[in-house]
């Protein structure tokens, strides 16, 4: 029986649990057990989905204390001998995974977006060169196989509810932390484009009037996102960038304004239900995957569309009254 460990990052429990789908692809023939790794507090979301949940309880360990988390994961591995360890490529996961791999003396593949298993060899797919191409990476056969997995890429469909066994784990090797988290500032940052059902996204064609996108986002109750062109020109922050070097998003509606639709941008769109593109070039690649292509100027489109939506709202309210 293979044993696979998934690290649960409290900052992104949903993406952490979806790593179960990646585990599933490593072992397509089944025959594996899944372990979740939780620090200070059991995650209810893991119950029924994993075979085991390892709960680490120790007052000396905090979630930002990557050195001690590394100690902990090492101890857990020495006790259970995992065949694979998967860590979500979140802010902390991206610092934790390389340390654990070095500690255990094994390879690590970063930011995996796909897993395939051919003739018993597992290929881990990841973007490279800012998403201009993909690399299929194999690790030497040293155990455990380790990877960090890009959040929001795998979709896990829960099967039968599992009878999850909780293992409380008290680590021995806990060192005094040499860093202290003194403040958390939840600014506008708290808004995450990955959580929006509607995204109004701007590309190079909107550089001169990018702020207008917010009016359309407001009218539709969505959020604004951007392509790499816009982010690289300093018009929008990287946190709202869609694409391989930005975020993978799955909104129900994606309105692409002045976006050309490079391969790396399209790879950032996963399971998008409807796409409307507004572009002066009807042959831009994004147009070929759109439900509706509006050929024309995005500035004009935004003005008219916002007007239309607001007019209809007033009409509707009038009818109700």
């Amino acid at each position, binding site marked *: 029986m293979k044993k696979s460990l998934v690290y649960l990052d409290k900052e992104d429990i949903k993406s952490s649990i979806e790593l179960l789908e990646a585990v599933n692809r490593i072992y397509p023939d089944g025959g594996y057990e899944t372990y979740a790794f939780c620090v200070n507090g059991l995650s209810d979301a893991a119950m029924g989905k994993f075979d085991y949940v390892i709960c680490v309880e120790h007052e000396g360990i905090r979630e930002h204390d990557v050195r001690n988390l590394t100690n902990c994961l090492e101890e857990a591995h020495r006790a259970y001998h995992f065949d694979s360890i998967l860590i979500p490529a979140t802010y902390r996961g991206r610092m934790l995974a390389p340390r654990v791999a070095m500690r255990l003396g094994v390879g690590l593949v970063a930011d995996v977006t796909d897993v395939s298993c051919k003739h018993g060899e597992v290929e881990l797919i990841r973007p490279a060169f800012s998403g201009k191409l993909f690399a299929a990476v194999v690790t030497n056969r040293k155990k455990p196989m380790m990877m960090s997995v890009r959040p929001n890429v795998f979709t896990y469909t829960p099967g039968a509810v599992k009878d999850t066994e909780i293992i409380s784990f008290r680590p021995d090797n806990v060192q005094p932390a040499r860093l202290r988290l003194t403040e958390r500032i939840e600014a506008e940052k708290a808004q995450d484009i990955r959580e929006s059902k509607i995204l109004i996204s701007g590309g190079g064609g909107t550089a001169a009037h990018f702020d207008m996108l917010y009016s359309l986002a407001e009218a539709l109750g969505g959020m604004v996102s951007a392509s790499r062109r816009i982010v690289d020109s300093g018009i929008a922050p990287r946190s709202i960038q869609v694409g391989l070097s930005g975020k993978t998003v799955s909104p129900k509606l994606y309105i692409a304004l002045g976006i050309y639709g490079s391969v790396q941008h399209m790879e950032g769109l996963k399971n998008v239900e409807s796409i409307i593109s507004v572009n002066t070039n009807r042959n831009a690649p994004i147009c070929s995957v759109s439900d509706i292509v*509006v050929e024309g100027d995005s500035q004009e489109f935004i003005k008219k*569309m916002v007007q239309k939506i607001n007019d209809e709202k007033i009409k509707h309210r009038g009818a109700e009254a």
Partner: protein
Amino acid sequence: MKIVCLIKFVPDLDNFTYDYERNVLVRENAKLVLNPDDACALAFALDLKAKRPETVVEIVAMAPGSVLPLVEDLLRRKADRATIISDRLFAGSDTYATSKIIASYLKKTGYDLILTGTRSVDGDTSHVPSQIAELLDLEQLSHIVKIHEVSPDGDTAIVDADTERCLERYEIELPCILSLSSESKYKLPYVRYRDLKLDVRDRITVLDNEALGVPESETGLKGSMTRVKRTFTAAPVQEKKRIVVGTDEKGIETVYQFLKYKGFV
């Protein structure tokens, strides 16, 4: 106080080509540039040195000898010295082997603080800073957007890290590794006009593995735990049946009816 800046030279992303027939990157013509995040790390160090002249800034890069002119340019911006780690044995090293090679040098040299970028635009794994921290048993933080304070006695630093969800402020003991993000907006100083042709070669040391003494089995492809089996570009996406309209009244109406039908308005 001695600051070591770990930097990487990467192919200029806007100017590289992909050979679709042979399925390989054309690296030959690719111009190398300083990785943007790493430039911010060095910029911060040089800024601190300008304020506290007793600070010593050493640049460390694992790179082929062809980067020498680029390193000279950085030294003319008032970095004290540079060490280039370069050996044919190191070619093909993955992040695991690379971290071991660089850490073996850092163990020999002294440091009070190590600055790096968070991610490189080519590999984009962010492994090396964390793995070097593991080998040197140091704390490490990524995505730093601001360094508020480095205490003059070299005890602690106060930094802000952008976790994407929020901004976190840390007090961290030195020595440690701070990995900056290009969103920190620290900018490299210009080269002074009179320094444009300054001879800085005596401030560069090129170290090969004879000097470092990393076991050969731990370098290059042999020392690597991962291997790129193949590279490919994304598969073309499936085309949809689409409606093409303009921005006239009819076009806006079509879009509106679509949004209504789908329940978005």
